[in-house]
């Protein structure tokens, strides 16, 4: 590590202690450390104070009755390890898309360290953002431009809402949670609030969290009876790689006719991209019908990729079709 990246380190005793410490300007929470440790080492992150949350870890997965919504939902502890959530029996049976997204993430070693909140709050894998040598990057140095616009574009967004940044968010878990309409529970000294996963990220792949915020849990609502789900990840090698594109699909069928479908795509924007228009167009179609592809295409009409990412529009649409059919044929 560079010699000038010293920082102070405090273990939070409980949530109240953590919230007080996190009010320190620049202070950051650390849990698994798999992302933050590398960012600190390369000098990309220069926090003066790390607040270790290990003592706050609770039960990884809680099954919670939600009377108005029918069946029980689940609450994932913010500090739950990725490996523990993926191995949970209730998660595997009820929300296979979550278990699959997690087991297709990173490596077994990383999943033993990485946590739910840390996975959601990880920074973009854009190589220009993470470069150790100075490079134009609006995140690193506002106003310096974006090296990806003249560089390698395979990892860039195809829905480019931010003129200064074409980063994608790398979390597979976030894509699965977005398809399931999950919510992030956030505490600060000002109180608690709930943020839908679909609104947890800005267009530039940063979270909407502010200094002093602490993610405490993620709540996943119940799924309808007969719900099936699956996660498809397309990447440059068979394992231990971030997605070029990915798709989380959840579907309820009536025979082979789609009664409801929820689709979220990863690798195409600064946040998980729900295919809202497609979801309505899919209702009533047979799962195997060619019309499924046309319905999904409606959600990509607004894509505006850089030249090096044009192929990802077709790739993402095909991934969505496959994920939907894989979900439908499960069980």
């Amino acid at each position: 590590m560079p010699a000038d990246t010293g920082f102070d380190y405090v273990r939070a005793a409980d949530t109240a202690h953590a919230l007080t410490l996190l009010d320190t300007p620049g202070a950051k929470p650390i849990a698994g450390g798999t992302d933050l440790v590398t960012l600190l080492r390369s000098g990309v992150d220069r926090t003066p104070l790390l607040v270790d949350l290990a003592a706050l870890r609770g039960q990884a997965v809680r099954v919670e009755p939600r009377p108005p919504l029918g069946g029980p939902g689940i609450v994932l502890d913010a500090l739950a390890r990725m490996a523990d959530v993926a191995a949970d029996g209730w998660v595997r049976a009820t929300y296979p898309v979550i278990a699959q997204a997690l087991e297709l993430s990173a490596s077994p070693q990383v999943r033993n360290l990485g946590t739910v909140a840390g996975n959601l709050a990880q920074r973009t894998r854009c190589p220009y953002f993470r470069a150790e040598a100075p490079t134009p990057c609006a995140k690193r140095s506002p106003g310096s431009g974006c090296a990806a616009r003249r560089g390698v574009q395979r990892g860039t967004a195809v829905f480019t809402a931010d003129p200064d940044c074409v980063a994608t968010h790398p979390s597979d878990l976030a894509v699965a949670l977005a398809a399931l309409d999950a919510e992030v529970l956030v505490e600060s000294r000002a109180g608690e609030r709930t943020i839908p996963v679909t609104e947890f990220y800005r267009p530039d792949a940063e979270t909407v969290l502010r200094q002093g915020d602490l993610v405490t849990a993620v709540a996943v609502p119940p799924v309808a009876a007969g719900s099936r789900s699956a996660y498809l990840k397309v990447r440059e090698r068979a394992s231990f790689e971030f997605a070029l594109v990915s798709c989380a699909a959840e579907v309820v069928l009536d025979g082979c006719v789609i009664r409801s479908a929820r689709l979220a795509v990863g690798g195409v924007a600064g946040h998980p991209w729900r295919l809202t228009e497609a979801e309505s167009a899919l209702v009533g179609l047979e799962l195997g019908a060619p019309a499924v592809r046309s319905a999904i295409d409606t959600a990509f009409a607004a894509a505006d990729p850089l030249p090096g990412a044009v192929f990802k529009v077709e790739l993402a649409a095909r991934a969505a079709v496959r994920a939907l059919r894989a979900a439908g044929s499960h069980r």
Partner: protein
Amino acid sequence: MTEQATENRTAIPVTARVSLRVNGVEHHLVVEPRMTLLDALREVIGLTGTKKGCDRGECGACTVHVDGRRVNACLTLAVMQDGHDVTTVEGLGTPENPHPVQRAFVANDALQCGFCTPGQVMAAAACIAEGNATAPHRIREWMSGNLCRCAAYPQIIAAIQEAAQADPVDPAHAR
């Protein structure tokens, strides 16, 4: 809390006390918070069996077990492992009494240069204990966090399969 809170935190390194139980032996260290578990093991405790490859979680050469789970020692800070149990390759077996995975790596010629081997062996022992070494395709997926630049992968898979048969799943580790 670190020992010296300083006015200019970025200029003057602060230090922290850490207790690590490594291969059954207690170590009391005073380290800078930014020191990784990997550097503490190698540079402070002097256990150089754990290798530093990429130093960013991509190659797996630094794999150790913390409280029985395999992790990348380069991705966690030593201060974060205070009070935890760490097993390194030095604690897995001895030359006289090698671990079944170590024996299988020798028998199957599962290495060339050997640099990745301590990490491979530690990951493999965990992979078997987790119950993830049931078939070659599953071993490949669950060993994907360990790279081998000599590409000894076929022999590594064979060694892990052999060790898994010799050493049935430890129910204490199966999850």
